[in-house]
């Protein structure tokens, strides 16, 4: 297990593109793959 880079990872808010807010700590699944994109060309 790799240590979390900070205590707030699970509370970081993302905007969902359809609607609403998403937080890692509130995901339905116990585990998630998070893919951070670079710019969209």
């Amino acid at each position, binding site marked *: *297990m*790799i*240590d*979390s*880079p*900070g*205590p*707030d*990872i*699970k*509370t*970081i808010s*993302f*905007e*969902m*593109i359809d609607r609403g807010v*998403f937080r*890692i*700590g*509130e*995901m*339905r*699944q*116990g*585990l*998630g*793959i*998070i*893919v*951070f*994109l*670079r*710019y*969209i*060309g």
Partner: protein
Amino acid sequence: MARYGQELEAADIGVFVVGFDEFLKLRDLRDRLESPFVFLRDAPRSAYLAFGLGRASALRTYLHPNVLGSYARLGFNGHFPRLSKNQDRRQLGGDFVVHRTGEIAFSHPERGPEDRAPVRTIIAAALAAQGG
């Protein structure tokens, strides 16, 4: 990664794609890829920062041989990136496997634009973390 969608769903692993561009671009990308995954936006890049994702040098962004090769392949296939003046092309991405509790089971912050983790490596790490 979409081809592994069913396998991931069966293992109860979510996939979340995060971008910092406008909603319209993210929606367009999702639709273009017919992606089944959840697309999220992090305009202030606070998550990028929290996950340690930095910015590449201009040299590596524009002149790395693998970057030039990938643009050449895209062009050869008739796809030309829609670049705009205000885009931050130096912001790096990365791939992570994260527990709901915030613990990180796999971490691959890009060191350059050509440094993406192989999809199979990410999937294997996720399945292992899930005990599969």
